[in-house]
């Protein structure tokens, strides 16, 4: 080993440098590959415009698009208003006020997250329809008719608002709880009452948070397929589905999908901007919140309000599901049901494993090769959560089908292969779509878990003689166990609830619980949709428990 330094070449690159550089580039390339997977559906759907089939486009523009745009406009406006009012008001009374039952409502108001909107939707119709129990009872006992029709624009907006307000509620509650206290005390010391303080200080300060929650809710609204199908309310997702199955027109589906992506991207831009503002909006550490003790009449009002929302959005639908389930359990809990359940578990398990593996890769890449390029790559790679499942189904099916045709061509020429599909009949498209859509869900916990492992932990391990592989096995993976578990659970449950991707890309014979719900509800068989729905709801409660526990646990 040469002991003297060559001081004439002070900036000479280390001999190991080429390897180090290659490894760093490798991490970036891996992350770019993940980001590319997200961009594929965007590029594919937009390129449908390159190959314009005149008739299809004219048909779309003349008969389909105007209705879709009007429907979507009212839907976004109505749901946006609904979730904002419900979410912010409920967040304010649970975060800043004191009334009997507040502790219960604090977490119970998140429970509607466990109910997919399509479940709330068919329960609402089953209950409130002309032939439903409420109207029948009113007619028979009171001779009352003329209740507003639930299968209407108002009905869709109501159901979606009840299903999606928790997005705004959760994030606004955190905003009020963490930043409200000190700023409100400052406002009070400047002579504002606490109610004035709400409108002049707390609400404006929480605006970025509320906007971020609102945008998430609107993305879900634009992505929703199941509810729209139950209500027969035509939006882009249902139109894509129809173009796919009824018209058998991939270009039409792709063109519709590309318009939907544009709408979604507007929401994404607003959401990302709000998140950027959230970083600057935090004020110091929050003092222990002194809640406003509501006077008895106000407390009763708060209790009534929160209680009604919880009842309508969660308790009544779940009760109804349970009642319906009791009716049909004897006949419906058969081998076929267990097959649906098994398929759901299997797909969700495979999907979650893929999500966690890729999330770990992406987060690890960010740690190994930090920098602006990596941050942008990670941001793009985790944008898939905004893409509606119907869009992903189309945008990933087209390239896989093309790849398939190419492979078949090779197979025919070289190996005498005479099938019609190689990849199309597999789970590939579906699993890729799950991966794109739910990568962000898994990336969040994994990345924050990895950030908790400080640089000095790595260096400490290295100075104790630990090489790279050993570092991963003995330090990183054990420290990340809890984060990986959270990521897998969240992805698992989201995939179980997912409807359009599964519906549109499943290979023959791969029916799941969600597919069963769709089939039963599209025939108006509400009672028979209850059993698979209940299973989905039970699974959906798990992440809410994780979500509410996250604030309290200490390490790991």
């Amino acid at each position, binding site marked *: 080993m040469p002991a003297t330094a060559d001081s004439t070449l002070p900036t000479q690159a280390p001999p190991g440098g080429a390897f180090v550089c290659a490894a760093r580039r490798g991490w970036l390339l891996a992350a770019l590959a993940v980001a590319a997977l997200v961009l594929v559906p965007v590029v594919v759907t937009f390129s449908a415009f390159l190959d314009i089939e005149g008739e299809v486009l004219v048909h779309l523009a003349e008969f389909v698009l105007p209705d879709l745009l009007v429907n979507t406009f009212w839907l976004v406006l109505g749901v946006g208003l609904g979730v904002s009012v419900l979410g912010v008001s409920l967040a304010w009374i649970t975060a800043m006020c004191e009334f009997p039952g507040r502790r219960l409502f604090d977490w119970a108001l998140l429970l509607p997250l466990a109910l997919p909107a399509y479940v709330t939707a068919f329960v609402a119709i089953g209950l409130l329809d002309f032939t439903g129990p409420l109207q029948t009872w009113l007619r028979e006992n009171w001779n009352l008719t003329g209740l507003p029709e639930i299968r209407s624009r108002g009905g869709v907006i109501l159901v979606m608002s009840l299903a999606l307000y928790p997005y705004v509620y959760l994030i606004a509650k955190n905003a009020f709880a963490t930043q409200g206290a000190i700023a409100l005390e400052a406002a009070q010391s400047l002579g504002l009452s606490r109610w004035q303080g709400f409108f002049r200080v707390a609400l404006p300060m929480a605006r970025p948070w509320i906007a971020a929650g609102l945008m998430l809710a609107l993305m879900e609204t634009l992505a929703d397929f199941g509810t729209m199908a139950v209500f027969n309310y035509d939006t882009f997702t249902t139109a894509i589905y129809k173009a796919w199955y009824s018209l058998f027109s991939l270009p039409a589906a792709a063109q519709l999908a590309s318009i939907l992506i544009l709408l979604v991207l507007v929401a994404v831009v607003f959401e990302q901007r709000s998140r950027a503002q959230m970083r600057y909006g935090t004020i110091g550490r929050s003092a222990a919140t002194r809640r406003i003790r509501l006077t008895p009449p106000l407390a009763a009002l708060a209790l009534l309000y929160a209680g009604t929302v919880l009842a309508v959005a969660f308790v009544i639908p779940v009760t109804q599901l349970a009642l319906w389930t009791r009716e049909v359990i004897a006949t419906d809990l058969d081998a076929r049901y267990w097959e649906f359940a098994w398929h759901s578990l299997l797909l969700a398990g495979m999907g979650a494993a893929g999500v966690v593996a890729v999330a770990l890769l992406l987060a690890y890449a960010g740690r190994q090769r930090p920098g602006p390029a990596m941050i942008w790559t990670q941001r793009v790679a985790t944008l898939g959560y905004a893409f509606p499942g119907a869009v992903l189904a189309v945008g990933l099916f087209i390239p896989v089908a093309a790849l398939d045709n190419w492979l078949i061509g090779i197979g025919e020429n070289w190996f005498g292969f005479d099938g019609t599909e190689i990849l199309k009949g597999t789970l590939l498209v579906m699993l890729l779509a799950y991966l794109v859509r739910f990568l962000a869900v898994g990336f969040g916990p994994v990345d924050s878990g990895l950030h908790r492992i400080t640089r000095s932990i790595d260096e400490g391990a290295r100075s104790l003689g630990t*090489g790279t592989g050993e570092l991963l096995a003995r330090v990183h993976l054990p420290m990340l166990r809890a984060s990986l578990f959270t990521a897998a659970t969240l992805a698992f449950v989201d995939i179980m609830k997912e409807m359009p991707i599964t519906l549109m890309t499943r290979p023959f014979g791969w029916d799941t619980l969600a597919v069963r719900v769709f089939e039963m509800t599209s025939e108006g068989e509400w009672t028979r949709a209850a059993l698979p729905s209940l299973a989905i709801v039970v699974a959906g409660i798990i992440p809410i428990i994780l979500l509410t526990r996250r604030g309290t646990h200490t390490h790991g």
Partner: protein
Amino acid sequence: MAELVLDSVSQAYARRQVITDLTFTLAEGAIGCLLGPSGCGKTTALRCIAGFEPIQSGSIRIGGETVSRPGWMLPAEKRRIGMVFQDYALFPHLTVAGNVGFGLRGISRTAREARIGELLDLVGLGGQAQHHPHQLSGGQQQRVALARALAPRPRLILMDEPFSNLDVELRERLSLEVRDILRREATTALIVTHDQHEAFALADWVGVMHEGRIQQWDTPYNLYHEPTNRFVADFVGQGALLPGEVINDHQVEIELGVLDGHIPVDCGTGGCEACVRHCTVDVLLRPDDIIHDDDSLLLAEVENKAFRGADFLYTLRLPSGQRALSLVPSHHDHAIGEKIGIRLAADHVVAFPRS
């Protein structure tokens, strides 16, 4: 254990020079310390020695083996250097025993357990072996970090601001404890700190760093009493600089009288006494160089005072308007504005050329 040698080491991040021409030798078994304000490059120096940063010139040798030179560095995991981090960097998923035993490899189970037990006894945590780091106090975590670094018998221990996360009282007690532990393990150690009390309590040798360079590498006693430049004089200990005039090659006159001793400033006299008379210097006076004496005819006005328990630290305003510090036993309680008698009691001269 091994000798640590840094030979004109330089390091730069993206064209900004962080450390320049760093040279010092830490003898086997000695405890050294890099002392300096934040941003002076001391932590970077430590990270270069640990093998986390490359160097651009010079060389680092441990026990005669070159571990870093421009364009090449021995990986950190092969250096056999123990490191104690500012945030301790304990592994939260392992117990105290698991942490301490982490770097022990290639030895039998019983030898491993014996070594863990030995170290936990050494740092006084024998009863906490099965606890997890988050169940320990800051001081206990600190000691686990030290035991973990010592366990594989490293050639050298590096500590980065080891006590900065602890409260003052614990800091003093623990720094004496750590010194004992390092002595008992006979480990060569290099500590980085911005706290001179810590440095003085722990180290045999201290290097004062400023703007990436070592200003003086010396014993704590010499750093305090014979600083070689203004930065060291100012950074280490308290004191005031008073203008003085060199009378001859062993006397300098200041407002408070004449100081005898070797004049460390080259006035370029060449033996010519007449030339010397016009050489003006700044003379460093520590607070213990000026004592309070009621009988002295030399009076100074108390401008400020700080009660420190056993004594007062008076800021005095001399007749010429110059300020000086004096440490006075606390039963001499004088009001601000009062004139008190003082006397010079310095036994040697520290002076710098007039700037």
